[in-house]
């Protein structure tokens, strides 16, 4: 039995629409996929690089040592128990100073609060760091009246 054309004409239209849709999909899809997406996984490869530009705040002890060899030499000579500490743990972040020492002049830390951070006696602190009951030990005086920050030992 021969069918009338009107019986299947809508199928052609439907098929055409499908093909059109497919073609449109193929061309439009890449516009929405960010560059580098999928290279390493389900994310933008460039995102790995983005975070690397973040500026440094902490220069690291090795940097300080290059210019402040006097401090380091003194610590080594006296075998100071602070010779392994990070300079910036007490002095705060100084990458800006290390990059331009003449423009950025560091403010010297307030000595007593700095010492108390590590040396105040408290339950749970391992004996790795010698601890003192600050109030009894210093009698309210600044730590600097008896200790020197870089070489805190008594001798």
């Amino acid at each position, binding site marked *: 039995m021969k069918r009338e054309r009107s019986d299947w004409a809508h199928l052609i239209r439907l098929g055409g629409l499908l093909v059109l849709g497919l073609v449109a999909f193929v061309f439009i899809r890449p516009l929405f996929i*960010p*560059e*580098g*997406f999928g*290279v*390493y*996984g*389900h*994310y*933008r*490869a*460039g*995102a*790995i*690089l*983005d*975070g*690397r*530009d*973040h*500026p*440094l*705040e*902490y220069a*690291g*002890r090795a940097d300080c040592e290059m210019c402040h060899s006097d401090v380091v030499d003194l610590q080594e000579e006296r075998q100071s128990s602070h010779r392994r*500490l*990070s300079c*910036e*743990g007490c002095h*705060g*972040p100084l990458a800006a100073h290390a990059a331009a020492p003449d423009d950025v002049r560091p403010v010297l830390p307030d000595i007593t609060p700095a010492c108390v*951070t*590590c040396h*105040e*006696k*408290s*339950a*749970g*602190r*391992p004996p*790795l*760091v010698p601890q003192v009951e600050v109030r009894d030990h210093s009698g309210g005086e600044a730590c600097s009246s008896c200790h020197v920050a870089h070489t805190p030992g008594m001798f």
Partner: protein
Amino acid sequence: MDVPRRQFLVESGRWLMLTGVAACAYEAMLAGQPVDAEYEMSDHWWGMLIDVDKCIGCGLCVKACKEENNVPDSPYYFNTWVERYRVQLADREHPLVDSPNGGADGFPALEESDDERVFFVPKLCNHCIDSPCTQVCPVGATFRSPDGVVLVDEKYCIGCRYCIQACPYGCRYLDPRTHTAKKCTLCYHRIVKGLTTACCEVCPTGARQLFDLKNPGDPIHAYLREHPVQVLKPQLATGSKLYYANLDGTVR
């Protein structure tokens, strides 16, 4: 034209292979791969070792992290923080935990007591190999990099907070300034330059140590041969690379 069946198969196989290779090469060329002459991602596999017995709870790591990574300066946002555990010997199930301002200003001094054991536990992103947080992201804005660091793509993060809920360790937050998820990056900007993280830099006792498992010279290999370590919530099989030594079982 008369082509024997055998020759046809060989010939078409060759062409198929060639087009495959060409397509891969083209893809790699277009990909815009991160290029950094000094730092090859495939040569590194980062993690961190925390020795609980060495932590004195001074909080310098928390402060340094906030400075280095521009973390909002309020007591709700931390990339790393320190918890003080007070385990009551009579009731080990319910340790008292405090972390005033994340431990950034240290902890209020505590009297020694015979009834409890007190210790400090630094926490941060576990940089899991199979992290739940990266799996739930609907837009592919958070991921584990080929060198093993879990990062956030700030440009594509839509701030939906799924990852914050998914992290079993509570290591993520929504930055109130950008409305994007933020977390510990393991100081990615530092480690690619050969520096250690800000928290490890200032730690006075070496309680925190960055390690690179793909570096044969890293002391971590000798350490792991001789010491037991464990991860938090191992039952979740997240592949955490934050190894704890001397960790008490009460820590969650």
